[in-house]
């Protein structure tokens, strides 16, 4: 079971601020992002990805563990 948190414009697409997802085997971060992209159609939305409060710069190299918390952080522009 992992938790995914959504912020800003990403949360507007997912229509929720977080969700819990269960997976049977080892889950790569890249696969998770691809699945989420398919599900929510993020398309042109840019965001950075954090796992357990740390931004991951190379999402392709990362394997998730149970109880990891993933966060999708788009840049905000307002001021």
């Amino acid at each position, binding site marked *: 079971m992992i938790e995914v*948190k959504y*912020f*800003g*414009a990403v949360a507007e697409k997912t229509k929720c601020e977080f969700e819990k997802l269960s997976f049977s085997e080892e889950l790569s971060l890249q696969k998770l992002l691809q699945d989420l992209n398919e599900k929510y159609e993020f398309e*042109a939305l*840019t965001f*950075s990805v*954090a796992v357990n*409060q*740390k*931004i991951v*710069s190379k999402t392709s190299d990362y394997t998730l563990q149970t109880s990891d918390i993933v*966060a999708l*952080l*788009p*840049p*905000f*522009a*307002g*001021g």
Partner: protein
Amino acid sequence: MSSSTRYNRQIILSDIGEEGQQKLAKSKVLVIGAGGLGTAILPYLAAAGVGEIGIVDHDVIEISNLQRQVIYKTDAIGKSKAKEAKATITELNPLVKVKAISEKLSGRNAISLFEKYDIIVDATDNIAIKYLINDACFVTNKPMVYGSIFRFQGQVSVFNYQNGPTYRCLYPDENSNAINCEEAGVLGVSVGIIGMFQANEVLKMILEIGEVLSGKILVYNVLNNEQQKYDFEKSDIQTITREAFEEKYNKCEVEEVSFESVLNEMDNDEVLFLDVRNTDESPKISLRNQIQIPLMHLESKLENLDKKQTIYIFCQSGIRSKIAFELLQKHQFKNIKSIAGGALAMKQLLKEDKLKLKI
């Protein structure tokens, strides 16, 4: 009205004291944007006794600003934000030296501006400018206090602090279409809260107290008061040199004119028409004050041209004249324009003009 009475309530904090107050008096902070974030930040910096404050904003006050830009008054609508903000914080604390810069921040003024300050505060409302500020901060080695809002959430961080990670390390992809308050909407308090966080970071840095949000981004949700902090690392590839900065932000803008608009200057002795086509090209154009220097020889023949003269450059269709324009501009020619459409357009117009005169 002595300063020790004014700042008494912070001086008595053991973490600050007279020494801290001195640090504030010596510090110089540039706030870019006197909108929602800026108007929250500025009064607190002035109140705390920051020695010098610069305010950059080319905008004027509009009625829809007053919902969250709380230092402005209704009868100041239409006035310059930078100047009004300066007036307000000067009234609050006349001991602070304030400079109002009613200019748009660009690649041309960013570096020279940033060099005059110690800390740069990003209180802007669009992503492109944040990258510019980031890059100029990197080149001038200044920390950037970042703040931004999306509806009921905000982000705060300090970039490039003591060689720490930058905005690009966090968000390397410049192609974002994030929307600002005008499009997304915002409550005044949200922008005020994030502005407070930013002012707090500025003061922490100057006073050297607490933990600066360097390599950390704070994400705050005003609806449920939840805050998250995410760590991020410096990326070695997200650096920029002075040369790369100039290349990226100060690309030459070619000024084009239509031949129609300069037709009446054809016989003006003060003006020169420069034909950069090869000598075998047609249609031939022979204006009274004209010189032909083929583009490939232009650089070596520049001394034949007067840098102070108004020069209209043309080629066959307006393409090579733009290249000639860039070359001349690089060599400090100031009064130059490229004729759109080139000789092909000119010939047409000259024919029509001749016909008109015959009538």
